């Protein structure tokens, strides 16, 4: 990350100074270290150092059987606590060749979309708090409780729903619960316009977010941004639209951009608010349709857990699973070997990992006051994303960049060959 920021850093004009933000700072909900180079209040350089929340989850997963890994994956992230299991189940089903019954596909869709509603509302509250608008924080979090209660009612847990299993889902949504869900969705339908007004019509919110942390379409594409971050920049990119899975193909999901709000996208914080609030509306629609169109049938293709365990032990191959999490595309890769219960390789790429680099152009030229809201605008989840921690106890550790690593590995290959 060092070289990236150095490339973008503009030449120093006058005296600049450095201000550290993090690893622990009120603007950050999770630890990450920024160091900003400031010219007055203006940001002229930024260096990002992640790695403070690395937990080695992939390594832990490689020492557990797949059913245990499923619940471990749920704990990668507390907010998108179904996105990771959904991606993992798809990866394992892909590797082992397990079919998922249609009703289970619909239930996965419904829970996934309900999670998007709660996650986006949570984000909206956090964003409002970063702007110093605590009333909106309390308002959004108050209304968020309804969907949390619904999720608890449908799944039995408020977070970490433990719903997907390889080859299906573990709990049905009977008609009575469906009615309950419809009632909650109606509540949100009635409320959403007010919430949109509170965020998008408020002068002080607009003053703080319009043209703040803008991300051009080109930068979004070049830096491989995903999810609402990319869509706010006008990139029509959504796994649900591009490679439909679960019931999304039946439900005709379309990527939401600020154009749906009759605004030309500029990728600023205001646009990310637009995209996320419109996606709440979209999710309400998806869940309502899915509840109505859900076919009858089996919930799971291998109902007996003992049979599932032995089937997975015999399975061999590699598979990928991707899911459009609230924050963007989450990607899981597994490799299974026959006779071994544990996955040989388990690789997780959380959406924040892709969106991290989008921070650099977003921060450049912004002011100190914009740091919290820009940092929050990509809805970062550090502990999902952290893949490595650089410890420097002896003072000998050093950070090597991509180009250097490629050079070193080429040298080694030549040495081995030569």
């Amino acid at each position, binding site marked *: 990350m060092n070289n990236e920021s150095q490339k973008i850093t503009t030449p120093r004009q006058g005296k600049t100074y450095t201000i550290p933000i993090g690893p622990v700072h009120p603007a950050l909900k999770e630890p990450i270290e920024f160091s900003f180079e400031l010219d007055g209040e203006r940001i002229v350089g930024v260096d990002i150092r992640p790695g403070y929340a690395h937990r080695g989850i992939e390594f832990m997963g490689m020492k*557990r*059987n797949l*059913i*245990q*890994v*499923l*619940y*471990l994956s*749920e*704990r990668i992230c507390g907010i998108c606590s179904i996105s990771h299991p959904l991606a993992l189940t798809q990866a394992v089903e892909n590797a082992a060749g397990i079919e998922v019954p249609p009703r289970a596909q619909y239930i996965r869709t419904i829970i996934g979309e309900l999670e998007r509603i709660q996650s986006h509302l949570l984000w909206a509250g956090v964003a409002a708090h970063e702007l110093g608008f605590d*009333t*909106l924080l309390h*308002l959004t979090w*108050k209304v968020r*409780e309804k969907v949390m*209660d619904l999720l*608890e*009612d449908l*799944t*039995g*847990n408020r977070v*970490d729903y*433990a719903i997907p*299993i390889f080859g299906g889902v*573990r*709990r049905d949504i009977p008609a009575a619960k469906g009615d309950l869900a419809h009632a909650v969705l109606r509540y949100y339908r009635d409320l959403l316009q*007010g919430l949109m*007004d*509170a965020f998008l019509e*408020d002068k002080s919110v607009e003053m703080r977010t319009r043209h703040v942390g803008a991300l051009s379409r080109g930068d979004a594409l070049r830096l491989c941004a995903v999810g609402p971050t990319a869509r706010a920049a006008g990139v029509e990119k959504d796994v649900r639209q591009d490679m439909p899975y679960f019931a999304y193909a039946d439900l005709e999901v379309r990527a939401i951009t600020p154009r749906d709000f009759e605004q030309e996208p500029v990728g600023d914080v205001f646009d990310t608010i637009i995209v996320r609030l419109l996606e709440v509306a979209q999710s309400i629609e998806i869940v309502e349709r899915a509840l109505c169109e859900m076919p009858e049938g089996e919930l799971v293709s291998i109902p*007996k*857990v*003992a049979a599932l*365990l032995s089937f997975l032990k015999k399975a061999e191959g590699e598979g990928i699973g991707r899911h459009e999490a609230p924050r963007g595309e989450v990607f899981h890769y597994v490799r299974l070997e026959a006779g071994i219960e544990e996955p040989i390789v388990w690789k997780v790429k959380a959406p924040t990992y892709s969106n991290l680099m989008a921070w650099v152009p977003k921060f450049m030229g912004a002011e100190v006051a914009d740091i919290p809201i820009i940092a929050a605008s990509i809805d970062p989840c550090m502990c999902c994303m952290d893949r490595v921690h650089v410890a420097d106890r002896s003072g000998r550790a050093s950070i090597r960049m991509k180009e250097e690593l490629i050079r070193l590995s080429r040298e080694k290959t030549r040495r081995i060959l030569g």
Partner: protein
Amino acid sequence: MIFVTLVRQLLDRPATNPFPTRHMPRSIIRLLERARRGKGAIHPPVPVPAGMRGKLVYDRDKCIGCQLCVRVCPARVIEFRSEQKKIRMHVARCTFCSQCVDACPVAALATSREFLLADTDRRSRNLIVE
């Protein structure tokens, strides 16, 4: 306009779920004990839905000691006691996925709606199911 909401909320009841008591009691354990005996009212906990996954319940007589639950438990809650061919569950570690309930071939396990499991001792009677 946000100000309409502000006025409405000012006049409405707060949305917060209250703590059991208004002020921190001298001893929480004694407070709960008194409340259990019906002395002194506390704000009741919020109602939980029917299917909530709470503390595990174990039917010792039904258990056949197959250890399937031990294999699937992601949190290593379940300890197999080989001399009795029965299990002991350390609920303090439980993540409430109820995968063991799904796995049990003889339906010896179930989840209850009990969720007030905070304790200072992870080996307390309340946190061990056997």
